[in-house]
């Protein structure tokens, strides 16, 4: 199940999705997070954020809507303190990086680069961020976020500028609300992205008809979970056929069968998010399931089935 992507070795293609797995240790009563191929941190931004007010999560048919609003302690605090929690984790670490403007994206990325350099030179006794997952697709923040992920022009600029300041692999996380997700993916690749991850949550609305109000203070919130799986799978296939860099597929992956579908649609790696809310053992179960499937189907290497659809 080993796989190399972006020049980095993953134990297996299964990565915990940003925002659903904290900073890696929250599910450790259920399984050792080091069994995962990778872990994407909660979205970090230059400044610390308290997130959105009001209800932040709600159920829909087959899905979950969330409006967390990128609550996080800020890149700097995280690199100096929070990351310590992750010291014992042996999985690949993806630093999920958000921003509210071009400048804050660049500055956040620069801080990560600086941190990585210090760790490499042993000037800092800490852990490296192996990959930056650039989040230009968060539907839950007022400024920035998804604004950069809707049009090619938006994506072009931020990827180009962030690319200039970081030397680690750069994966760009795309929104299903992009005007044309394949075209944006191609733009990101052209601007130097080493990979594409998709999809972030789908912009959505839920109304409390008795209160005559939207359930979420921000009106719209992001839809994830099994409900969006067929939509995500279609987009992952489209993007995989468009770009030549590796694709990280996600959106509604709950079982190993779902994960295999994404790999057959062209994904090199996959992420599971909402799945952990449904089953805290989800990460472990998906890994075990893929292994079993490969045995049953006599698949030696996932390359044999990747992108065969």
């Amino acid at each position, binding site marked *: 199940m080993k796989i190399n992507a972006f020049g980095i070795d993953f134990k297996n293609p299964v990565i915990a999705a940003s*925002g*659903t*797995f*904290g900073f890696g240790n*929250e*599910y450790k*009563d259920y399984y050792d997070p080091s069994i995962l191929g990778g872990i994407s941190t*909660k979205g970090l931004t230059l400044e610390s954020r*308290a*997130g959105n*007010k*009001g*209800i*932040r*999560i*709600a*159920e*829909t048919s*087959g*899905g*979950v809507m*969330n409006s*967390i609003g990128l*609550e996080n302690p800020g890149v700097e605090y995280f690199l100096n303190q929070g990351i310590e929690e992750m010291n014992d984790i042996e999985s690949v670490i993806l630093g999920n990086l958000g921003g509210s403007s071009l400048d804050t994206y660049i500055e956040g990325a620069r801080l990560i680069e600086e941190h990585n350099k210090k760790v490499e030179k042993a000037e800092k006794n800490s852990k490296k961020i192996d990959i930056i997952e650039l989040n230009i697709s968060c539907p839950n923040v007022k400024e920035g976020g998804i604004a950069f992920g809707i049009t090619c022009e938006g994506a072009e600029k931020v990827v180009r500028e962030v690319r200039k300041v970081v030397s680690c692999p750069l994966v760009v996380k795309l929104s299903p609300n992009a005007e044309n997700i394949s075209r944006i993916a191609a733009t990101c690749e052209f601007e130097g992205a080493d990979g594409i991850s998709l999809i972030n949550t789908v912009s959505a609305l839920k109304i409390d008809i008795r209160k005559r109000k939207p359930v979420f203070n921000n009106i719209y919130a992001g839809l994830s*979970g*099994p*409900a969006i799986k067929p939509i995500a799978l279609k987009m992952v296939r489209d993007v995989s056929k468009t770009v030549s860099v590796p694709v990280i597929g996600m959106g509604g992956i*709950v079982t190993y069968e779902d994960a295999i579908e994404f790999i057959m649609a062209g994904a090199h790696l996959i992420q599971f998010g*909402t799945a*952990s*809310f*449904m*089953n*805290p053992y989800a990460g472990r179960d998906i890994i075990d399931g893929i292994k079993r499937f490969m045995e049953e189907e006599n698949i030696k290497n996932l390359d044999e089935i990747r992108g065969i659809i």
Partner: protein
Amino acid sequence: MYKIAFNKKIGIDFYIMRIEGNFEGSPGQFYMLRSEDSFMTLSRPISIYDIGDNYIEFMYKTVGKGTQYFSKMQRGDSITLYGPYGNGFPVDEYIDKKVALVGGGMGIAPLMYLAKKLNNPDIYLGMRKEAMSPEQMREIGESYSRYGATYFNIGNDMTEKIDLSKYDAVMTCGPEILMKKVKNLNKNTYVSLEKHMGCAVGACLSCTCDVNGKRVRVCKEGPVFRGSEVDFKDED
């Protein structure tokens, strides 16, 4: 996967569900309950009502789809639950102090197990008139009164009638308006907060709020906090 031993209606929209198995947990902690199938995407947080030899019990009120689903389950049906989660009430600290428990509406649920673990607390339970028949209230009252003097207040504001200042501590659960009043009547009040939850393990930040000027996760650092540190105005 566990089996339901019984699931009985104890009020107009109140139920007690007993599930077979060996369970852990202290008062104020909660479990995440869900249907055996995967169609429920969010599990529902429900406090421990009681734990005994080879069973756990939950008292819940039907408010929406999830709890309505639970209410339709029957003896022998399968259910999935994870837990216990959260910190719980500071039982050890107050085991031999004079403690009042104040619960309103569904907030009475965690207080039974809490009373069981404390030493003869005074128990004040508030309930809307429509919530249960007199007969049903008597039955519920009897369960609680095994562990402490129990006062049932029906339909009116109980905080006006009782002197909470005389207790070493007050532990409360219920509507925010109730908990807010209670904490003003005794400085040493512990409140149990409710937030919509995703993960219950501190991973998703669905349930955070400000307590004592810091961001906390109700599922992890809570759900029980010192009343003095919670600013109920901010809770929305």
